[in-house]
């Protein structure tokens, strides 16, 4: 397991301490959980953005102008 040092603002530090108190977990545990969830969402957003960038223009050229066209076309 590696170590990462991160500078937090006073507001972020207070929010983290509050989360630790409420959950009974350590700062490391809370930050690891938050990071894990955030990275999953980040990967999904990145995948969506890349797909849109590579497919939407071709979709319009081939007759799918909006998402409604896909919803009606794909059964």
């Amino acid at each position: 397991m590696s170590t990462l040092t991160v500078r937090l603002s006073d507001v972020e530090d207070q929010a983290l301490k509050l989360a630790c108190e409420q959950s009974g977990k350590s700062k490391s545990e809370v930050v690891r959980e938050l990071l894990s969830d955030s990275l999953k969402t980040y990967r999904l957003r990145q995948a969506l953005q890349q797909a849109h960038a590579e497919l939407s223009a071709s979709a319009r050229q081939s007759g799918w102008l909006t998402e409604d066209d896909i919803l009606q076309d794909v059964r």
Partner: protein
Amino acid sequence: MKVFLDTNVWLSATVFAGLCEAIVLESHQRHRLLTTRLVQQEAHAVLRRKFPHISHAPALFDAVWSQAECVADVDEPAKDNDARLVRAAQSAGAAVFVTGDRRVLSWGLESVGMQILSPRQAWLLLSGQAQ
């Protein structure tokens, strides 16, 4: 809440930014997003047919789709993939099945234990805006 998306919703989310994309993100972040291999197979077939010049279109889809939790497919009825997906969702305990297919939406009135909703209806429910 367990949420299962029909193939047309996955494809809409993958190709265009908009409501279906928002449903995927909301389901992933705040609920449990379920899928099956049949969704992937159907999506790949459509993408290969629609985008023959983009050979990696299925890979782009997989990068999005693979973020969902894959549950078991249902084999019957063999000639009706829509019914198979609905049954797979029910078997996995999904509370919501989201589709743009009017035929499947019409089954919503008879569906027991699972709502079959349009993307708009699903968005209102999943985001907590439903009345």
